[in-house]
């Protein structure tokens, strides 16, 4: 293997050759990028179900797909199918299969209320409740419903349809899942297990119960009046995230593999860092140690100094705690230099796509470098004085960006940070 194909640690250089995205802003890379750079919000009043009496009525639902069924697994699959197809097409992989494994960041799926009521209606046996649900299932086999709510199903179906190799991995690291899917691809390629990996993430789990659960944890914004203004990362009056849906897919392969097959390189995956937090189920260690460690590890892994990072794609959820913690941790790693680096949150426009977030934002990061345009943090009308960052407020900015740090943090102490480059270093 020649030097031009290996990185500073002698490992194969990993590039991205295909990408796909679906968010509340639209289907496909083009629509998303157009909306993202024009500062458009995809957040709206929820139409899928009634929100009467709830404290949050808004979300970034994806209402334009045609899923087989309107349910978390149904919508998640439809989006994942779309982004995978787009990514493989861009990468030049046809229907002959993909020469590597699938890493799928899978949404939480389970039986939903519509399914329970459907089962209840099919039987009179036993007391209403689980007794009757089980009786109903005994009396009438529900193969489709069974398949739908197995946690591995979406990945199994994607693997079979698109012909990826072997047993796919369905994973969850909560709101860091999208980044973890990419991390798994990086690690597999570096191990020499494969020359290429398909990394997909999808989350279509905005249901009434989903919204209520996050509300009960006080995680969501209640600024319902003007939905498109509700997600305001780094603003003083931010009060929670907006629950959203989306999917992204990325084709990772070694530079050598991409070069040999004449594929166009869209960007370079330079490094990844991870550190778990043992402090609390939903909150980060007050000293920021795990996040600081994850960021530092990502830079070290990528062989990049803090000075070389010229844009940060923030986790930036718009919760009071996350944005402050993210700033403090970045400041600890970058020092005052962080105040000179543009940093924006795509979530100001697309909300928090949860399981899909890290992958969606990775796709947007590659577009940022490729187009030389930084998408803004919109709704930045009331800066938080404690977070003195250049958040690329409200309007996109033309800039030559060659190295990006992208952060993802999740409940359960999950912290995963990725470093991307425009060209092979």
């Amino acid at each position: 293997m020649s030097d031009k194909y290996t990185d500073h640690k002698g490992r194969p250089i990993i590039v991205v050759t295909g990408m796909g995205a679906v968010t509340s802003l639209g289907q496909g890379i083009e629509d998303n990028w157009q909306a993202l750079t024009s500062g458009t919000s995809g957040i709206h009043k929820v139409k899928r179900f009634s929100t009467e009496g709830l404290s949050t009525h808004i979300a970034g639902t994806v209402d334009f797909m045609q899923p087989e069924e309107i349910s978390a697994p149904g919508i998640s699959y439809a989006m994942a199918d779309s982004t995978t197809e787009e990514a493989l097409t861009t990468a030049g992989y046809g229907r002959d299969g993909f020469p590597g494994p699938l890493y799928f960041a899978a949404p939480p799926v389970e039986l939903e209320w519509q399914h329970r009521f459907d089962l209840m209606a099919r039987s009179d046996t036993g007391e209403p409740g689980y007794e009757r649900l089980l009786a109903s299932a005994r009396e009438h086999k529900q193969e489709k419903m069974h398949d739908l709510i197995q946690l591995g199903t979406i990945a199994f179906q994607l693997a079979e349809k698109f012909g990826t190799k072997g047993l796919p991995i369905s994973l969850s690291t909560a709101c860091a899942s999208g980044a973890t899917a990419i991390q798994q691809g990086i690690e597999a390629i570096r191990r020499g297990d494969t020359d290429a990996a398909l990394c997909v993430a999808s989350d279509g789990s905005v249901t009434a119960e989903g919204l209520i659960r996050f509300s009960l944890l006080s995680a969501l914004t209640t600024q319902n009046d003007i939905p498109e203004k509700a997600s305001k990362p780094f603003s003083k009056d931010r009060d929670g995230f907006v629950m959203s849906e989306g999917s992204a897919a990325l084709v990772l392969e070694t530079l050598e593999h991409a070069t040999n097959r004449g594929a166009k390189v869209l960007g370079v995956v330079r490094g990844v860092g991870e550190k778990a937090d043992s402090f609390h189920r939903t909150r980060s260690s007050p000293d920021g140690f795990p996040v600081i460690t994850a960021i530092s590890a990502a830079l070290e892994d990528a062989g990049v100094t803090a000075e070389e990072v010229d844009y940060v794609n923030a986790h930036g959820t718009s919760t009071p705690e996350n944005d402050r913690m993210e700033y403090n941790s970045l400041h600890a790693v970058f020092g005052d230099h962080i105040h000179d680096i543009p940093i924006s949150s795509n979530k100001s426009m697309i909300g928090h796509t949860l399981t899909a977030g890290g992958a969606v934002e990775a796709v947007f990061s590659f577009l940022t470098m490729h187009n030389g345009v930084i998408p803004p943090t919109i709704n930045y009308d009331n800066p938080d004085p404690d977070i003195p960052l250049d958040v690329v407020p409200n309007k996109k900015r033309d800039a030559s960006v060659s190295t990006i740090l992208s952060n993802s943090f999740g409940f359960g102490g999950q912290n995963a940070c990725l470093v991307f480059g425009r060209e092979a270093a």
Partner: protein
Amino acid sequence: MAANNHEVWITGIGLVSCFGEGAELHWNTLGGTKAPAPIIDTEVVAPYAVHPLPEMDWSVQIPRRGDQRQMENWQRLGTYTAGLALEDAGLKENEELCASMDLVVAAGGGERDIETDNSIMQDAMSSNDREKLILDRLPSDLRPTLFLAQLSNLLAGNISIVHKVTGSSRTYMGEEAAGVTAIENAVSRIASGQSTHLLVGGSYNADRPDALLPHELGHFLYRGKGEGIHERQANGGGMRMGSVGAFLVLEEAEHAKKRGAKPYAKLSGVASDLGSRDKDKSSSRLSGMADKLDLTENGPDAVVSGATGVSDATSIEFEFLKQQFGDGLATRAYGTEIGQPLEANFPAGVALAALALKHDGFYPPFEDGENPAPQSVSKILVTAIGHFCGEGMAVIEKA
């Protein structure tokens, strides 16, 4: 480039099943001359039979009551069993090695609030606006922290919090395949030098109607009582779910030697695949996996089988084993004894194989129709053929 030649040792086992807790307890119970009658509860989720959770004193491994309260039983079971594995490996409360230890958990979805669900379904019978009913009831009836007991990755989160395992943390999902991919990934990382010590496993709580429902939808549950995996096949087959926690400490051999840790066994290789359950295609995939594990020339001395009891998958597996390795192979379908623990199935099989190798023995037949154990066993094949898809195999050998 990765070398992929580091030897992977199993240096700690945590195991909880209907028989009780601890690796040694399981060897003492299952490894004698005659297999025990399985412990089966026909009341906890009647009319189904399950291998129930044994009586547990959670505070032994989860000392803070606040931590216990934040979990439901599948998480308590997993967190508890992870603690047993760490203790067994001599790593519990070793702050430095836990802080650098990687964590891979095979997890399903969490548990529901049965009382709340049942009550809403009862009220729904007389409601003409069910959407409104849900909106009225859930915000007040759901415990705010229940969500955290439902997120798949929060088992890993709880293990980090309670046992301070924080090197890295990934949760794999997808029923039996979750356990297979978790162990396969763990082994690859250690073999390639990406990790030196790692905690991997899963847990499953069968004692709940909401856990059984997804399987009954596909008619995968066995409707009879105490029949073993083989015997069940005459009655149409099916799964009898079992509450199990199974965690392993995997360690790069040199890393273990340096700290004076003894291995149960070495994990020589893992293979997995996915495809249609057409009989010929499945067989050829299983042969391919055996080939990848170098079993074609040198077969295993015995098999610890994760057969679920579901007819299609079980007959495909048993026929493959017979064809590939001959009639006389000693195969132990442990589902007969501890039930089918879904995500924890493969980790439990690997644990049982490692235990036998450490004790220089094997298990007696778990039911009629299983061949007697051979004189000496130094290489065991562990299988996990998912009840509806996904397949895994591991080779465990004397270290």
